[in-house]
């Protein structure tokens, strides 16, 4: 392999494995809605789907980044907290855990 190829490797990978597979969805979106009106029912539905997907992405980012933050297992802390609080609300009592 020539020196230029080695040099270009990461950039080629950026285009092939990053830019193209990512941009594909944007281009498909552009092609599919050609000439559609923003008030049409299908666009209203698409907006709901987009919002739900965005929420799912954010939920996954929030839950998965607890792995990156090894010192603070956020998911565990949240789950523990929820488990603690739930029965206390259920019985109308005050939170009985000191956590």
């Amino acid at each position, binding site marked *: 392999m020539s020196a230029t190829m080695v040099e270009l490797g990461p950039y080629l990978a950026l285009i092939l494995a990053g830019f193209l*597979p990512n941009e594909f969805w944007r281009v498909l*979106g552009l092609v599919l809605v050609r000439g559609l009106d923003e008030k049409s029912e299908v666009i209203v539905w698409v907006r709901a789907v987009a919002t*739900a*997907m965005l929420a*799912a992405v954010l939920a996954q980012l929030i839950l998965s980044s607890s792995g990156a933050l090894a010192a603070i297992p956020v998911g565990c802390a949240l789950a523990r907290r929820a488990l603690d609080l739930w029965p206390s609300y259920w019985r109308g009592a005050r939170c009985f855990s000191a956590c």
Partner: protein
Amino acid sequence: MTDTAIARPPRSSAQAFRDGLRAALTSILFYVLLGNYSGIGALCYEFGFSPIWAVLCTLLIWAAPAQVILISTLGTATLLEVAIAVSLSSVRLLPMVAALLPMLQREDTRQRDLVLPMHLTAISVWVEGMRLLPGVPKEERAAYYNGLGCGLLFAATFASAAGFYLAASLPPLLAAALLFLTPMSFLMTVCRNTRTLMDGLALGLGLVLGPLIAAQKIGLDLLWTGLIAGSAAYAVHRLRQAKASAP
């Protein structure tokens, strides 16, 4: 209801672009992106990429989850595996672009004028665009959205480079914290921008169903979550409309 946007004289594209840029600068997401993308810049440093690569990565991909996957797996997985993982993480871009572009296009809009708005669409720009565009006259929207998108993309690009150079002195935990804080603030912005029942339902259902469906390990979980939660929210919206119009 009075529409103040129609009352004022028409503006040039350059003015609308500047208005969009100003909206980007005053958006909380501008500052959130600075944090988020310095985390991504730091990640590029950790995995041994060059600063130019980090900047190009942000400019070309402009989707944080896809970038994190690309940066962290490119060294170990095959090119095809990386491409598939990146692509699966970006399915949301299709409905986002599809919901947004009709707000910009008029009968005389050329397809190529929509290419830049298409590329600029990312969670941050989309969220702010969906909130702000209804108050902008239709003929100014494309330029306005381009301004908004360029402003936010600038923040991300600048931060990618800054994060790269800061990475040497930044403690790793801080870089991780930057990456963690940002989805929380995105979520809060999305919640704040939720106006209609349908948007709220889609958001709530997506938040709950997303991790649940992902835990089933059936693959394409983002796609399924979007279709199920989004369609359910849309169905409720239609039912309420039918009820409201019934005598």
